[in-house]
């Protein structure tokens, strides 16, 4: 098991390396640069040149990349051009907020999506199934920014139960405050993914319910409920785990809209900032971190797969 994880991690190194080159390429392909944003509109060419040289941006791109990579490997992602603070520190502030939001959103999504999927798969075509399909369509169809604004208007402005602007409170510091701050953005995202989860798991469950081993379980006299919980769910989970992993990964990198609506201090906001000000080190660092997390989540999905499905083994 440990060997399998280490081996998979080693395989990730070239992936991350190639991706980091891609990140650099894309950033430099976009017109404009950080210097203009720093020196202002009325700067003389000499001033621009001086700042460019000071930041080391006059060196060949390849040299800049290798230099950045060397530092990145040592954990030093450079200094933000705007705030002059270490990139690692800025990311260190935003990443836990995003991870916390992402986990909360996935949990809400599962909490809503799983029962919906099981209930509709057990009675396909029934009025309940159709009602729940309507729910999934609604969850998927309503734009998250609009749902977020509705939430703010109702729960924060009307009822004044929850803050309209969510801030990051670590769970271990104050669970109550954390929940109060995260429940609105997490529900916004969670309702959306619950639609995806419900649809996907329902299809997966229906496929499994036609399997021969289900007929076997029925022939043994099991209740339909027990057949689903004991036999079918674990089999249906296999493809579903991938979807959950993908959604989690996408939240880490891109809950942009929701974070913006709730002015939540996460990675999405950090990256928008970095793009707006052409803060290259901050942008490169953020993308790199998101990428690594993406890859680690995929690894976690694979490990989970092997754990759920005994037919797979760590050797493969």
């Amino acid at each position: 098991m440990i060997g399998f994880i280490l081996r998979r991690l080693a395989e990730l190194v070239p992936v991350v390396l190639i991706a980091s080159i891609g990140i650099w390429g894309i950033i430099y392909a976009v017109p404009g640069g950080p210097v203009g944003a720093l020196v202002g509109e009325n700067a003389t060419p000499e001033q621009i040149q001086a700042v460019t040289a000071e930041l080391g941006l006059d060196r060949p791109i390849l040299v800049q990349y290798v230099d950045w990579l060397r530092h990145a490997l040592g954990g030093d992602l450079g200094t933000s051009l705007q705030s002059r603070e270490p990139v690692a520190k800025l990311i260190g502030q935003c990443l836990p907020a995003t991870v916390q939001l992402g986990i909360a959103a996935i949990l809400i999504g599962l909490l809503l999506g799983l029962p919906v999927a099981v209930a509709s798969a057990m009675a396909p075509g029934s009025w309940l199934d159709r009602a729940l399909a309507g729910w999934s369509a609604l969850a998927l169809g309503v734009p998250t920014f609009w749902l977020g604004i509705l939430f703010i208007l109702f729960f924060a402005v009307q009822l004044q139960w929850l803050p309209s602007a969510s801030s990051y409170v670590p769970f271990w510091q104050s669970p109550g405050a954390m929940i109060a701050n995260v429940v609105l953005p997490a529900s916004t995202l969670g309702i959306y993914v619950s639609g995806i989860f419900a649809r996907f798991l329902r299809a997966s469950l229906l496929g499994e319910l036609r399997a021969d081993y289900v007929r076997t379980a029925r022939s043994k006299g099991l209740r339909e409920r027990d057949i689903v919980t004991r036999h079918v769910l674990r089999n249906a989970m296999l493809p579903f785990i991938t979807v959950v992993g993908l959604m989690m990964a996408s939240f880490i990198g891109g809950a942009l809209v929701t974070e913006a609506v709730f002015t939540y201090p996460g990675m999405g906001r950090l990256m928008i900032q970095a793009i707006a000000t052409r803060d290259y080190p901050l942008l490169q660092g953020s993308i790199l971190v998101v990428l690594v997390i993406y890859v680690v989540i995929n690894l976690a999905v694979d490990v989970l797969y092997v754990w759920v499905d005994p037919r797979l083994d760590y050797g493969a």
Partner: protein
Amino acid sequence: MTPSADSRAPVLSVRGLTVGFPAGRRVVQAVRGIDLDIFANEMVCVVGESGSGKSVAALAICGLLPPNAVLGGAIRLGGTDIAHADAATLRRIRGRDVGFIFQDPATTLNPVMMVGRQIAEAPVVHGQLAPAQAGARAVALLREVDIPDPEGRVRQYPHQFSGGMRQRAVIAMAMAGRPRLIIADEPTTALDVTVQAQVLAMLNRRRVETGAAVLLITHDLGVVAEVADRVMVTYAGRIVESGPVDAIFRNPRHPYTRALLRSMPRLDGDDARLDPIPGQPPTPAALPSGCAFRPRCAMSRARCAQDDPALRATGVDHHAACHFLEEIETLPAPAATVRAPDQGGAAPLLDVRDLRVHFALRSGPLRRRTGVVRAVDGVSLTLRAGETLGLVGESGCGKTTTGRAIMGLIRATGGEVRVDGQEITGFSRTRLRAVRRHMQYVFQDPYSSLNPVRTVAEIVAEPLRIHGLFDEMGGMARVAELFDRVGLSRSFMNRYPREFSGGQKQRIGIARALALQPRVLILDEPVAALDVSIQAQIVNLLQDLQQQLGLAYLFIAHDLAVVRHISDRVAVMYLGRVVEEAEKDTLYTRPAHPYTQSLLSAAPIADPALRARPGRIVLTGEIPNPASPPRGCTFHPRCFRASEICRTEAPRFAGGVACHHPGAA
């Protein structure tokens, strides 16, 4: 379990069972009135072709049918009225009073749950067993079905079991609640013949030990003859004949039973031409009027189209449903086969020398080569014009890989393949394509080997187009001629594969293979997916074509009776090697290799009188994993004649056999 107080009361009693499925506005009757009684410690076989309603009836007995099924009639299991029982009662009966064994052990078990837990699940659910004792009970149950190391096996998952062991586990599971009735639906159809013999023997032993009644559903008359006490023959949703097993096989009274017995090749049979039943079984949605067998029956008369005959007594406990039971003796005898003239001495059309196909096993991130599977390991064969060589063996022995490697569909690792004297193993794809004009392949599964979105005429014409010979060889006129050849109406040419039955699809596959006027056909299990009555049609067609066109056949199959019927010579494969090859009659009457002997001994014979034949060999174990074959002779761990030398030294193929101790059994 203890026998019931009144041992004459049936365990299961079914009267007038009907099952229908709604299709559009009407209800299609899959089962049209079945009566049956099963008593304790009795093995009743229900035999019939696909679509005869036998499985539907079995599922109906315990309410396992989909909810839209419409049931009629009375079903009594012990004291319970099943037909009117509520869902909770049915659930209590399943697993406790009735155990089920299904066809495919690969899919019957839940792949992500330990075998032991699945086996003991029913008694725990029914409160017969405390959950804490489930583990110990599972071990005991596995031991009762002869699974070695049951303590270790209960903690394993189904994929860690071989096919035969899985089916034993399923039987253990069916018996876990000590049911009075066991319903086994094609329990050995997915198993190899040597494993089938083991499993049937074990099932029978467990029946005697527990006193349970067994309802065994099968299409295989050989299996019926081996194990049945009583037999019910089903056709188009009804029982057309029922009686003691000897009466059914010795003195069949219904024209269908007679025709069925006559249409199948026998392991101990002669070369008499098979007598197929014309046409095909009716589908429940389109039944003929009157007697459902009428359109295929040689004796049908005007009355048969009007009245559907009821079962009538024709002997002790022997019933048949025919208006003309009394006249049935006068069926015409089948004509003898005219065999193609012997071509002995002519140069072989196909000459395979020391063919080897090895697959690398790769694992790890760098896909390192960690082992090798010798799927085919030194096979030599010759085939002359007009001759049929049968290639038999159990699953995984490499017979299909051999066929594909000869065609060049899989690249050979070594050895030579000569077609008409021309060595082709090193050929490029283009040159191979040219050779394939003379050598064509017919696939096992007629259901998936035809492209569903093209008309059958296009499918048959495709080889002509690929080789750029469509116009040269006569275009659509050639295709029409091929349809005549394989006995399909030209009016079908513009239809799509889904509109055809299995037998018709296989005819299309044969027509496609014949399009380029090949000289060699490689037939890979061409009749394995077909019903018995249809098998005979295809076998006869193949024999006629061979005679008319002088074709050479490499006939790959696992069914020993079919192979005997169609072949001139037979080669037996085990783990990638030919272990014995001989003229057909020599091989079947005087086999020299212990594996051939056990294979022939294990094959069920459709004759209950031979059930207790002396010297039956039931092999232990199953075919080893080809990735790690045993040292020495690969058969030695299962061989009853193995000695020291067999453990260390692989025997060479000499005098038609590869064995250190060849000879009579």
